[in-house]
């Protein structure tokens, strides 16, 4: 029986990708067309909007030329475009560049640069004001200036390290566009707001903020958002995969044993 860790690794592996190219792209195009072809009721090699039973939005996602007809050629082109541009964000190579594309670094920088009211979060307006206040010269700012702005005392080492990653050619200048991009990298859920991230579970800032409450375990939770440590687990009663007439109620385990919940899907 595979270990839990190997299963998790498998789950993560299905999340990995690289651009679709050449033969692989053609194979994918054929595979996607085989999925869509089943809707071709009259077998004329065209799936029309009338034949397609799913939503308008779904159909539109394939219909590159908006002619309400899908063909094998169009889907091949769709795969070409989606495979190279769509889907998940491309993984950045490890190394100097890797540090600014994810994790807590960008969020820390955004908070350090732009958290005017000290509430542990930055919205787009605050971010724009902070950018406008940066001393820009020829679309760049000085790496030394950035370190000073980020430092604020105890985090100088982090500021220097992060700034050196942005300054890839070591010329002491950071392109303003690199700074502007930080907000996008830090705003993981794309809600237009960056908050500090704590590693112990749940997104939270260092202080209690409006719109947030704390669970009984002291963990902060967004109002109406994710359950936090100490909260009563929201109950559910759901059918079991493979035997849909049988169900599991989460609360039936209460007082008996703990339950690990893995939320996810195959894709």
């Amino acid at each position, binding site marked *: 029986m595979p270990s839990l860790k190997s299963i998790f690794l498998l789950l993560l592996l299905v999340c990995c*990708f690289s651009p679709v190219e050449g033969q692989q792209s053609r194979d994918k195009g054929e595979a996607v067309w085989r999925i869509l072809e089943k809707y071709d009721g009259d077998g004329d090699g065209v799936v029309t909007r009338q034949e397609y039973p799913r939503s308008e939005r779904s159909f539109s996602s394939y219909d590159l030329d908006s002619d309400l007809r899908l063909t094998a050629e169009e889907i091949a082109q769709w795969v070409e475009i989606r495979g190279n541009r769509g889907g*998940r964000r491309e993984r950045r190579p490890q190394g100097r560049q890797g540090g600014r594309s994810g*994790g807590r670094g960008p969020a820390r920088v955004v908070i350090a640069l732009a958290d005017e009211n000290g509430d542990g979060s930055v919205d787009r307006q605050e971010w724009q004001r902070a950018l406008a206040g940066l001393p820009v010269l020829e679309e760049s700012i000085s790496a030394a200036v950035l370190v000073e702005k980020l430092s604020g005392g105890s985090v100088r080492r982090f500021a220097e390290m992060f700034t050196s990653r942005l300054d890839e050619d070591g010329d002491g200048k950071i392109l303003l566009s690199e700074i502007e991009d930080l907000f996008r990298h830090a705003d993981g859920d794309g809600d237009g707001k960056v908050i500090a991230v704590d590693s112990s579970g749940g997104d939270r800032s260092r202080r209690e903020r409006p719109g947030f409450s704390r669970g009984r375990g002291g963990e902060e939770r967004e109002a109406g958002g994710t359950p936090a440590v100490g909260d009563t687990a929201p109950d559910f009663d759901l*059918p079991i995969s493979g035997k849909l007439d049988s*169900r599991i109620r989460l609360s039936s385990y209460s007082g008996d044993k703990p339950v690990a*919940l893995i*939320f996810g899907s195959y894709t």
Partner: protein
Amino acid sequence: MLVYIREAHALDSRVPNLQGPLIEDPITILERAGAATQCQSALDLPFVAVIDGMDDATNRAYQGHPDRLYLVGKDGDIAFAGNRGPQGFDPDLLEEAIVAELKKISRTGREYF
């Protein structure tokens, strides 16, 4: 247990993943169950999976999309709440939480070790 929720990267979504399984966004519980079965079989998952309803109620209650880990303690309270995946999907933290929870339980009478 796996709580099978709506697809993260369905073919007809804004963010299809052509390197993974090619699945259109299920529009019935049977389609979603079919995708779950495929997933369990392909990944050889040794634990039970339950299927979230098409109203996505459980997903919304836990903010589980696209993937997230939780541990519900024996007392029915959340013992561990992982960050939003995939960046926050950290099985090591879940494992630590499971070990801590089982130790807590063994101290209070029931033997798990």
